[in-house]
């Protein structure tokens, strides 16, 4: 399924239900929190199932992840200052 279907559906429901937003927002926040924890648990399950055959691969993955995050964040902060 395309990610846009639930997003657009949600935007429509949210826009139509704007009158009751104060009541709904609190319940929605709770629902988001609970389903977020469920999603993170399932994300962990999928990651835990990955068999790492070599310690080099594990170490290299962490180095790559940290280096790419640092690079992206550094440029984003510089961009924020420029624009």
């Amino acid at each position: 399924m395309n990610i846009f279907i639930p997003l657009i559906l949600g935007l429509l429901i949210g826009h139509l239900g704007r009158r009751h937003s104060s009541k709904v927002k609190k319940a929605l926040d709770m629902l988001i929190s609970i389903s977020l924890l469920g999603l993170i648990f399932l994300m962990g399950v999928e990651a835990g199932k990955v068999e790492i055959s070599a310690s080099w691969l594990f170490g290299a993955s962490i180095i790559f992840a940290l280096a790419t995050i640092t690079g992206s964040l550094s440029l984003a902060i510089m961009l924020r200052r420029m624009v």
Partner: protein
Amino acid sequence: MRFLYLVLAALMAGLITGKVFSPDFGNLYELMLYILILFIGIDLGMSSISEVRRVSKFVVLLPFSTMLGSLLGGVAASLILGISLKWGLAVSAGCGWYSLTGPLIGQYSAAYGALGFLANLTREIITVILYPIAAGKIAKEPLVSIGGATTMDTTLPIIRKFSDSETAVVAFVHGFILTATIPFILPLILQL
């Protein structure tokens, strides 16, 4: 802060469950993601429409700076690990999109395909842990860049939870532009 501990606990419980029992939940992960995106859509729909209109020059440029920064990080990682620049750039061009990066690189090299998969999966996991911690210390909009392409789906809920509706819109646009760009950039690098 209490929610961050819950996030870490859920992640650890998932990692242990996956490692020990290797359960097959079928499409549950996908289903859960769509439900969350629906909730986020409702939340955004209830927010002021002016937030969506405020898509600035910064928001349009942010995905490109994320890609460039990721590639520079890939160059640095290649130098540290002593691997070919081509593979380093390919792994880093995935920007967290592990399900695409692993198989695409895997067509050329199984070992680097595995690295592409795992490095981008690790980026997603680090984003889940790092965004809540750093959200109070670093400006929320530039911080979106750490999630790379995942900010339009899997890490969007955590960004929304620890920021606001406006940053959620920035995250979605950021992830969307990267998702549209990566399938073109990654094969180009692999052709080098």
